[in-house]
């Protein structure tokens, strides 16, 4: 195959694989920056994936499907926030419950609705865009101008979030809530409200990530279709040291590594395929030796805030 075509296909596949992880990771970055960890991302993504398909089928509009996924993702996020911020219970356990809840709700909902007939339904999914009519440009066309709308929205969201953390008072308030909530509270900030908002919005991102999987990357829902991507998203957040842009970049590196291993696999059939599947993960482990540690981990991550320090 022509090398340029190969590279362009590889990058396009990498972006497709990365997009849902990047979206979920962005939302999780926001939540964790405010001091709340949500290990139930996967459950939210599943609900998002299901709702997007359901509503897209019913309204024949993937955009309404996306909106529904975002709304339901936010609702799931709000549930997590309610438990971890208002009730102040163990966040990781709540997250695990959320994971099961998402698996259950999406699977059950699917069986009650579009899955009931047992025969597949045509899903009116997103099609890649053709920005400025340039997506046919050699090499860069598909990669730069021929992605799904959600991919571009992800970049916009990352830019906005980075700007918010860097340049706005709201960003500083969120960082303070995650780092030293006692001081934030002493400055008159309602730490709990900040966290509630961040976790809810984080859930909305995860919902959108699910919608990408089921209405853009694929057109259809199957149970547990996220297949561990929620956990990869958390790894991305940590790897990116809680920086929005880096989270997207790390997800992209993951996606491209995955797309590469997929391509090498069929070229070298004599090597057991498992050795290719582990390539992205090994890459991460090796890269860790160069990354430095807990740098950037919000100090109050995982700890509920109660006054009376």
């Amino acid at each position, binding site marked *: 195959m022509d090398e340029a075509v190969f590279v362009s296909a590889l990058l396009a596949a990498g972006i497709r694989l990365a997009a849902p992880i990047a979206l979920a990771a962005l939302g999780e970055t926001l939540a964790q920056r405010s001091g709340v960890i949500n290990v139930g991302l996967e459950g939210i993504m599943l609900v998002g994936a299901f709702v997007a398909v359901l509503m897209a089928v019913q309204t024949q509009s993937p955009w309404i499907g996306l909106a529904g996924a975002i709304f339901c993702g936010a609702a799931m996020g709000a549930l997590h926030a309610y438990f971890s911020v208002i009730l102040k219970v163990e966040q990781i356990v709540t997250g695990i419950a959320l994971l099961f809840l998402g698996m259950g709700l999406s699977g059950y909902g699917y069986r009650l609705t579009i899955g009931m007939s047992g025969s597949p339904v045509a899903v009116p999914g997103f099609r890649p865009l053709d920005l400025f009519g340039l997506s046919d440009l050699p090499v860069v066309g598909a990669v730069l101008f021929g992605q799904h709308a959600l991919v571009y929205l992800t970049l916009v969201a990352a830019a906005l979030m980075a700007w918010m953390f860097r340049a*706005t*008072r709201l960003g*500083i308030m969120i*960082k303070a809530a995650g*780092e030293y909530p006692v*001081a934030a509270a*002493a400055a*008159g900030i309602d730490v709990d409200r900040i966290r509630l908002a961040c976790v809810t919005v984080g859930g909305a991102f995860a919902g959108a990530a699910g919608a990408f999987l089921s209405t853009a990357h694929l057109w259809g829902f199957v149970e547990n279709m996220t297949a561990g991507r929620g956990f990869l998203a958390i790894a991305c957040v940590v790897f990116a040291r809680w920086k929005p842009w880096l989270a997207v970049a790390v997800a992209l590196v993951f996606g491209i590594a995955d797309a590469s291993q997929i391509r090498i696999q069929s070229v070298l059939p004599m090597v057991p395929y498992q050795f290719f599947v582990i390539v992205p993960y090994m890459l991460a482990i090796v890269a860790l030796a160069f990354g430095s540690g807990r740098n950037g981990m919000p*100090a109050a991550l995982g700890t509920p805030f109660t006054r009376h*320090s």
Partner: protein
Amino acid sequence: MSVPSPDDAFIALRGVSKRFASVVANRLVDLSVRRGEIVALAGENGAGKSTIVNMLSGLIEPDEGTILLEGIPARLNSPLASVEAGIGTVHQHYMLVPTLSGLDNIALQLGELGRGRLDRAGLARRVAEVSGALGFDIELDRRIDSLDVAQQQRIEIVKAMMHRVKLLILDEPTAVLGADDKRHLFDTIRRLREHGTSVILITHKLEDIFAVADRAVIMKAGSVVAQADVEALTPAAIVGHMVGASDVQEAEAIVKGFGRAPRTTEVAEALCSARDLTLRRPNGSLAVSGLTLDLHAGEIVALAGVDGNGQSEFMRCLAGMERPSAGVVECLGESTEAGSWSPALLRRRGVSHIPEDRRRFGIVAQMTLMQNYLLGNQERPGLFRWGLLRAGRLSDLVAQRLSEFEVRAPGPTAPMRTLSGGNQQKMVLARELDYAPKVLLAAHPSRGLDIKTIRFVHRSLDRARAEGMAVLVQSSDIDEIMAIADRLIVFSGGRVFGPAPCESVSRNQLGAWIAGQEEMPW
């Protein structure tokens, strides 16, 4: 006495009590502050001063009693409510987010800056105005956790001054400030008073009270035991109320301090020495360059100067927490050249360290006093058997230290965080002086301690010196240095003055050095 009536007071506490489990922190406290009045709040460690501050700043609520704001009962049930009532607070434990810059920390509490983009340049100008008026030199762009405590303290003060507050509460703001900074701060406070701002100043330094306060309120064991206009008071009178001394002589003795025994040992062996030592900060700037210093057995060397001139880095390096970028440190047979320079190694050899940033390094706030006593002592013989703690032994030891150091705490199993700041410091001191260290590195050892305890600490240091310990004391307090040190060394503006014997350095000379001048300006 001129106790204001609640009607003309800006703020008034009436019969306020606060309990924490078994401890009564405040008992039926009556306290009023007029508009444009500076009230000094004094009292022993644990007397209940910070508890009052916390109630006024909305961190905790009183169990009983009322707080009147301009004569009207007010409910300060959140920090926001307190801020909105016009109260600005400098807490004893700084409320600064360690990973944010000084400027962002200040922005954090300025609600009027809105929710959109933060105008950092504009804010920096406003901050510069306030810090300029205070005469403070502050670094706004560096992260708080890269600043030493004196810099943090200045930022904390500026932060509180950014608002046009009606009541300014300062909880031990001068604990680590140098003389100049302190003078500027007091000037500002006086200016605020002219604008009608009320001030509550908590301090353990009697001279501070006489320098700025209009009135002094003295607390003991949670209650107000005396209050009077400052003109009507003497240092001995204040101390007498504080400690509940029955006779005047005892109080006067405390005020005067003790006579330092002349140095007995002649020049003894050097236990610790630095050769051509250069230290850099994480950002690459020079903290210490080309320093050579010996610490001998049986002497106390004072490390003076305004904090932020490399003292912290030097102390931490001697304690094993940092490595030099050039030069060598040798201590009790260990050397930075050997490659394993670490606190563990030095502690094993007999180095004790009272850290500058107590809450960050010196204690684990959530742990009990017993566990905090183990901190750094965990490898010492006698406390563990087969890797398991001998809890009874440790408990007895801690109980004994609690009474020796007069720590106000329910008992060895109380969590460290429930102790008042001064009592926490006493626990650290007690721990680091235990096990007869050969070298003691003490950063601001009397920080936050009441005057009586300071005397006790000074006597303890003196005794340790007599027993052959080498002591390095980092202090910004000239009185303290002159009271206890044999030799002194000053870091200022990248330069090193000394070491010189204390007898040969006049107070004025010391002041000049601290200001970075070779000669006295007059």
